[in-house]
């Protein structure tokens, strides 16, 4: 089942102590794919705020670059934007499926139409986090993806 998370779940001010507790799964290798440098930084920061404790976070600025990185060293989790130049997020996911990649894949996007959610689910995405997001929406989505 596709998990859809957005800021409506929680605001920053509503962060509670349990949210700050470290993830049970640590040292996870994560790849952040987004063409906006600022957004990659925000995703990184939000992962930290959500309690994800890992130094193994890599970045790619489009699907094509991500595909090369994944072929070299597959991550455990991929957090990917939807609209990007060169290769979109859904194109990347389809390529990874063809390659038999086992990494958990989720979208972090400003898109959120029912058609897009259906396409994401059909392609095998574990979750969709819509922008703007919160640490709690990250944790909820990743928890479910890892579960």
């Amino acid at each position: 089942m596709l998990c859809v998370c957005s800021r409506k779940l929680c605001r920053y001010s509503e962060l509670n102590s349990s949210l700050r507790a470290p993830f049970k799964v640590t040292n996870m290798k994560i790849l952040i794919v987004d063409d906006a440098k600022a957004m990659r930084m925000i995703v990184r920061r939000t992962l930290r705020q959500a309690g994800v404790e890992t130094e193994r976070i890599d970045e790619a600025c489009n699907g094509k670059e991500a595909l090369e990185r994944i072929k070299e060293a597959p991550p455990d989790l991929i957090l990917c934007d939807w609209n990007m130049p060169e290769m979109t997020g859904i194109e990347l996911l389809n390529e990874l499926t063809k390659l038999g990649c086992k990494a958990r894949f989720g979208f972090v996007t400003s898109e959120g139409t029912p058609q897009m959610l259906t396409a994401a689910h059909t392609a095998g995405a574990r979750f969709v986090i819509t922008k703007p997001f919160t640490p709690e929406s990250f944790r909820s989505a990743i928890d479910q993806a890892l579960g």
Partner: protein
Amino acid sequence: MTNQAPLTIPTVQGVASFLGGLMGRATPAKKIKVDWAREKGWLSFSEFRYPEGELAALFVADLPFCCWSGAALALLSPGLAQDAIKAGKLDQALQDNFAEVANVLTATFREFGERVILGQIHYAKLMAPEARPLVAATRRLDLEVTVTGYGAGRCGLLLT
């Protein structure tokens, strides 16, 4: 002439909450009256387009809003934004960050089940030609937004 249903005008609180969620800080907003056509200063015009390509709205922002929001998004120092305001232009980092603010703001229409995507962003001292038909739009939301910890700026959503 568009065949698209017109976009719903967002609420002040809706936009303020949306920006606050994006920047991770309070961004209180209040409705203002502004005639963008008479503005002498630097403005940016972001095209919000329907997926089919037609213009749906313009997101207009003055230099302080672009600088404060762009800086806050990436936790850049307020001083850096202040320098850009004094210089009268955005540096590349602030420009990239502001583009992401505009990009994410397109999703504010998502709650109404409407979809637009970010088109081109025009950074100009003078009003871009494509903005002229819309500056007198009656379907609009003009705001002064305070980015807590940074400063206040003005922006507007002008809907076709």
